């Protein structure tokens, strides 16, 4: 894909984040979508492309009164929205549509109008994972981490420091769910969930949503907001079964999506001013730093523990507080994208001064899928 041909011209989250018991899941989609459409100075009838995940595009298009000429229902977990951005950018460049709406919302906490997630007993996961006691993401996503720690000499304290650094960012963000400062000791003394991970190393469970509006970069200057350009993109999938990953020392999906985006963007790691790595659990930023090529895996734990990703550090990471402290409705990728867009617009609550390039890296399932979007505010 060519660089900087498509821009984000509308971006918004749901009016409220956190616990929203008075809204069903599709209404959360609509609330985010209407906010993003207003942010772009548009009406629903101006939208001719739609993408969403879990809820179907037909559901959301009909609910909002949109008649699209381009549709994407890619649903690969929490990074689906990174893939939507990539697909939408290609579609806009190809002339399949002009103005795309991407929506996410989930009633993850209140479970209002949310279909249940289940693993069919005849699926490969149902036959070869479910009988052994996996029960929700906390029992599955951390399974690789002990191997990763042994291979690279990563310590429990270093992984705990991920949560500490992100809480520092969250403290600067009025919309973050968790703002009280925490220490490594607090993390390591919090309630055990699935050894080696404790409560403060697991994401929040909240309600909310977000939406993006994309159009061609040439049209973007006519919109009210500062355009945020798509500089590079990447995507991949590996396996829905965490037990069947090629290795627990890295994520194959990360290693395809991340470098593809860097190559497309034509940038090197030292060009990155701001970084988002989807943190459903505290080990993900370590995998991300290694798999995206920022540093050798052995150095990732020390890099974070030494404060390099904290406010004032040389690589600001998960500056909204992340899934650990900002919010996590179940498919957090949209919130990572929203924070990248805010940073590129220069309006983030914890703004990285002068940031010009933001890398936004997402995961879907338990390392099952990945999408990477690199944004810039300069064309």
């Amino acid at each position, binding site marked *: 894909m060519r660089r900087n041909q498509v821009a984000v011209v509308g971006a918004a989250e749901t009016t409220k984040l956190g616990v929203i018991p008075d809204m069903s899941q599709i209404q959360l989609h609509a609330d985010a979508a209407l906010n993003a459409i207003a942010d772009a100075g548009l009406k629903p009838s101006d939208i001719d492309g739609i993408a969403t995940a879990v809820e179907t595009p037909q559901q959301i298009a009909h609910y909002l009164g949109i008649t699209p000429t381009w549709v994407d229902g890619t649903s690969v977990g929490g990074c689906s929205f990174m893939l939507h951005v990539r697909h939408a950018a290609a579609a806009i460049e190809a002339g399949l549509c002009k103005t795309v709406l991407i929506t996410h919302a989930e009633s993850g906490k209140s479970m209002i109008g949310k279909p249940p997630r289940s693993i069919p007993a005849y699926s490969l996961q149902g*036959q*070869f994972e479910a*009988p052994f006691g996996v*029960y929700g993401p*906390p*029992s599955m996503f951390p*399974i690789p981490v002990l191997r990763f720690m042994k291979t690279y000499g990563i310590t429990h304290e270093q992984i705990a420091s991920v949560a500490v650094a992100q809480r520092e960012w969250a403290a600067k963000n009025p919309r973050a769910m968790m703002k009280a400062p925490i220490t490594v000791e607090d993390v390591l003394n919090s309630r055990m969930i699935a*050894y080696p991970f404790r409560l403060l190393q697991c994401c929040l469970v909240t309600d909310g949503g977000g939406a993006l509006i994309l159009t061609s970069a040439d049209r973007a200057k006519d919109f009210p907001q500062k355009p945020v350009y798509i500089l590079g993109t990447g995507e991949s999938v590996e396996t829905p079964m965490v037990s069947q990953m090629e290795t627990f020392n890295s994520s194959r999906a990360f290693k395809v999506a991340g470098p593809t985006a860097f190559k497309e963007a034509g940038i090197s790691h030292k060009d990155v001013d701001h970084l988002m790595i989807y943190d459903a659990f505290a080990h993900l930023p370590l995998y991300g730093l290694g798999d995206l090529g920022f540093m050798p895996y052995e150095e990732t734990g020390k890099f974070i523990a030494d404060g390099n990703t904290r406010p004032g550090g040389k690589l600001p990471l998960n500056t909204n507080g992340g899934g650990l402290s900002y919010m996590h409705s179940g498919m957090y990728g949209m919130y990572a994208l929203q924070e990248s867009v805010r940073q590129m617009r220069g309006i983030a609550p914890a703004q990285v001064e002068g940031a010009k390039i933001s890398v936004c890296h997402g995961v879907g399932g338990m390392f099952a899928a990945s999408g990477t979007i690199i944004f810039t505010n300069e064309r």
Partner: protein
Amino acid sequence: MAEAARARPIPTPETQHFWDGTKAGELRLQRCDACAHTYFPPRPFCPSCGSRKVSVFPSSGKATLYSYVINHRPAAPGFTPPYAIAVVELEEGPRMMSNIIDCPQTPEALELDMKLEVAFDKLDDEITLPLFRPAKG
């Protein structure tokens, strides 16, 4: 009220040989006749080269502990926390999820790379699960 049972697999035509194997006390894997790749989970073609010429064979049942969590909460139906959810690496190469029995469910007792052997746990007349225990000797 009956106690909640653990999730029970439903075999498909492509996986039936595996579940027939565990019932008969064999942990069956597949090997590609064309490229010799050994793989799991079951399917009637090689995921490495695409050949449909593949053979089923019994594995040695020997494995090592690749990684795990000790799940505290929430517990799956049929499980009493804390319990380890492990991924074992079979001697023949493939990895699979399982549980480690006859072993304390603690980080001290569950050492990565420890030697394991398969143990068959009959769930009902149709399904026997392959679990693993520390290898003897």
